[in-house]
């Protein structure tokens, strides 16, 4: 016997099979009827365990088990697509809210009502976040937004109150800047973080993501530019993600920052740090604050088996009962989406009440542009990056951004 022959044959079979596989995709092994599968981004072991606890709670009465697969957040979408191509998509797919339109547009998601999910009592903004073209495909248990978080000690020492308008913001930030401390910190990275932080300023100025070049968003760019040019914020903001911003704030290198409620556990670990939350300043006194809404939503992928879809829907319904929403919201420091649950949450967590009240009216990123959001988001980040680094004026940058956002049409 010649061992090489064996090896040869094995390799030939293997590669032939690999090539044939491109022609006939599909035929994944039949899913186990007693197990409901979930794809999410809970890679942190504590968060994973927490998720599992709620899943178990809701799956037990139905006589099924839940198995989670968790991948890093930026990999969920591509992993889901890969699974879809092999017909092995999970029963519940937890996407970032901004990814829903792209998936819904493929026809691969089931409208949640059709599957039997009860969404009554949910805030309008939460419904919008999970919707595409008027149909709801995703259910958020808890959502987040952004606010102004400030260092109480630094502000009171300077005799300052948290700013409410853009002019106050610039003045206050300037006064708080000395030594190695900047008055203000925000994230302006060319990715989802930076865009998320830019939106409340862009929107409250009247900016429209579908018409970036209508001139209304330019003052928001000017504000960011003024903060950096006036040295009230570090020019390194173009490299800071929201985590970096939080680090700067904790280290006392920023007196105020824009950030979200998910930072609370980290902030709370630092006993010497006294902080409070205020609404994000608006262009003029009395203007409405328009914060963005963010978070993950549970969707039900289209499978041939409607029975499994109904089971998934039942689990989602259970997860969204008021007490479960409140408990979940508290565990991840996000605000529940049921109006009643949010009220209870605000009562129990007074420090986060500011976030709780704003998410009810917060705006969804994909509401206006739908599945085009990733392209628009890219264009928008290009605009603030080039303005902050001195490459373009606000108006010119937005004009360029609009061209970039509509190039494919």
């Amino acid at each position, binding site marked *: 016997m010649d061992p090489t022959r064996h090896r*040869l044959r094995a*390799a030939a079979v293997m590669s032939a099979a690999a090539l044939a596989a491109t022609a006939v995709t599909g035929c994944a092994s039949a899913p186990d009827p007693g197990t409901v599968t979930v794809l999410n981004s809970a890679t942190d072991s504590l968060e994973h365990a927490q998720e599992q606890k709620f899943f178990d709670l809701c799956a037990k009465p139905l006589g099924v088990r839940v198995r989670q697969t968790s991948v890093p957040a930026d990999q969920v979408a591509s992993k889901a697509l890969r699974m879809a191509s092999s017909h092995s998509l999970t029963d519940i797919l937890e996407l970032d809210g901004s990814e829903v339109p792209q998936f819904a547009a*493929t026809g691969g998601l089931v409208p949640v009502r059709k599957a039997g999910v009860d969404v009554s009592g949910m805030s309008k903004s939460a419904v919008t976040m999970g919707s595409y073209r008027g149909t709801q495909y995703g259910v958020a248990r808890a959502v987040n937004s952004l606010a102004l978080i400030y260092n109480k000690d630094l502000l009171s020492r300077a005799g300052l109150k948290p700013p409410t308008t853009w002019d106050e913001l610039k003045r206050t930030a300037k006064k708080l800047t000395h030594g190695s401390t900047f008055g203000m910190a925000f994230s302006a990275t060319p990715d989802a973080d930076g865009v998320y932080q830019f939106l409340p300023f862009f929107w409250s100025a009247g900016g429209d993501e579908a018409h970036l070049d209508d001139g209304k968003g330019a003052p928001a760019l000017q504000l960011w530019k003024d903060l950096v040019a006036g040295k009230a914020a570090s020019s390194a903001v173009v*490299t800071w993600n929201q985590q970096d911003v939080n680090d700067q704030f904790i280290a006392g290198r920023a007196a105020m920052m824009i950030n979200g409620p998910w930072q609370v556990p980290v902030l709370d670990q630092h006993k010497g740090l006294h902080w409070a939350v205020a609404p994000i300043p608006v262009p003029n006194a009395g203007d409405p604050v328009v914060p963005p809404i963010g978070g993950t939503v549970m969707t039900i992928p289209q499978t041939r088996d409607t029975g499994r879809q109904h089971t998934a829907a039942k689990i989602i319904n259970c997860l969204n009962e008021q007490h479960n929403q409140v408990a979940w919201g508290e565990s991840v420091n996000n605000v529940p989406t049921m109006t009643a649950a949010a009220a209870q949450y605000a009562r129990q967590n007074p420090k986060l009440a500011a976030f709780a009240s704003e998410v009810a009216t917060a705006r969804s990123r994909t509401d206006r542009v739908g599945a085009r959001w990733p392209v628009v988001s*890219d264009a928008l980040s290009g605009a603030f990056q080039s303005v902050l*680094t001195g*490459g373009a004026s606000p108006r010119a940058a937005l004009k360029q951004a609009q061209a970039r956002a509509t190039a494919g049409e």
Partner: protein
Amino acid sequence: MTITATGAATAGTRPPAERTTGGRGRGGGLLRWCFVAPAVLYMLAFFGYPLVRNILMSFQHYTPRTYFTGSSPFNGLGNWRAVFSDPLFTGSLWHTLVFTAGSLLGQFVIGLALAVFFSRRFRLSGFARAVLLLPWLVPMVVTSIVWRKLLDQDTGVINTVLTGLHLASGPVPWLSSPGVALLSAILVNVWIGIPFNMVILYGGLQEIPRDLHEAAALDGAGAWRTFRSVTLPMLRPVVTVVLVLGFMSTVKILDLILALTAGGPADATQTLGTVTYRLSFEQLDFGQGAVVGNVLIAVSAVFAVLYLRANRADFGRGK
């Protein structure tokens, strides 16, 4: 990831007896192919098939819907036109070339200098050589995180040292200025690439017969002349290896830049790699992503062929 060259330079120094021809007859062909076939089939499956698939994909309308329905209609040159008309693409092509040229130059010059230096005999030489390989072992994602901290404009150690020693008037905006960021990325990549260059060039230096150096010294050549007219020509096949491989791994770089700057600020560090990533994994337009991927492969192929021609190095002679 090394490919080897048989260079004209060393061929001359080999005894001619080595160049036997043919082998024993042409019989027994099947058994001989049994040696080669498994590896060839494996490479066809693991590289050939993906390559072909990527080329096809660049002519298809390949979107998230494709993954659900399996349908990906051909759209001719549509993807190619869209990519080539995007100013971001032209910019990224340029950045890629600058980044690659800068990285290779830095890695090679420093790697060669270290290889020559460590060819001397002194205490710690062997130990130092071994330890210098360590940067190679740290996963890229961690390397970038550490460097992001080192290069931080306000709190980074590098700026602290530079301003402390009055070498810089103020903090250098390493990653936050479009004019500097690409340079910083090159700097980090040079650091990553030094060990590989040093090891291979060091190996090459050890092969150069010592008496050649001594002969040159007897002829009155100085150290620099000896290096230029004896060492470098002898080293040429190894240089080919280092540069060709370096080029191919540098030109497609993605993770380093993604973690270091995410392509910013103001797209100053967008490269073909990051644009592919953006198109395929953020905008989920896999057809256009495939176009950029193909451009990457084409750039590498053109470079490899040109370089090998110019240096008359021959990959794959070997009888």
